[in-house]
């Protein structure tokens, strides 16, 4: 699957807000694990998802947040929803 760079850039901008001080936006890659590698805590992950919902005008269900573990998997869910 090809990655939508507009969606990727938009997601990076959202993630950046919630990164801890010791993680830079340049550390974000498609394979980055949001919690284990980017050190976003699970409480802030909810805020990432709520910002994603607002930005892309989509709704993420309870069972979908668990699948959004890496940047790429989050982008996949976003592109599925945006396409609908």
């Amino acid at each position, binding site marked *: 699957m090809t990655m939508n760079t507009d969606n990727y850039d938009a997601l990076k901008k959202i993630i950046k807000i919630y990164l801890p001080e010791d993680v830079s936006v340049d550390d974000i890659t498609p394979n980055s694990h949001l919690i284990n590698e980017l050190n976003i*805590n*699970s*409480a802030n992950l*909810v805020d990432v*998802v*709520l910002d994603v919902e607002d930005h892309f005008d989509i709704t993420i269900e*309870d069972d979908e*947040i668990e699948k959004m573990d890496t940047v790429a998997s989050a982008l996949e869910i976003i592109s599925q929803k945006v396409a609908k």
Partner: protein
Amino acid sequence: MKTEEIIALLPYTEPFLFVNEIEEVTEQYIKGTYIFKEESYFYKGHFKDFPVTPGVILTECMAQIGLVCLGIYLLRDKTSLHTMQVAFTNADVSFLKPVYPNEKVTVISEVDYFRFNKLKCHVKLYNQANELVCQGKLAGVFKV
């Protein structure tokens, strides 16, 4: 759900329970009260010979009423509610006035969002004269 049931489900006890009564609760809002007892342990040290309720304790009172009691109400249909766990995750609070021993305070909390078991609220604490003592945004994550 009766308000007494909410208090009975709280995971706190003395000397760290800061809820006396829930006066109103809806899906969007809760109002509760607490009277700070002058024999509370923290007055012995905060401050030396001049007891004032610590800001962290006011914040805890806001969180217990404004987040945890409200969260219990919002999760009232969950069968595993009695084994509920809660983690306090965010607090951004401003303090405007002191609260002295034996003062009754009223906490009012309005839901900002409750999604993916994270509850974020705007919480205000008023003193007995109905003056705003502190306010802020608090959030917590529930595990049920």
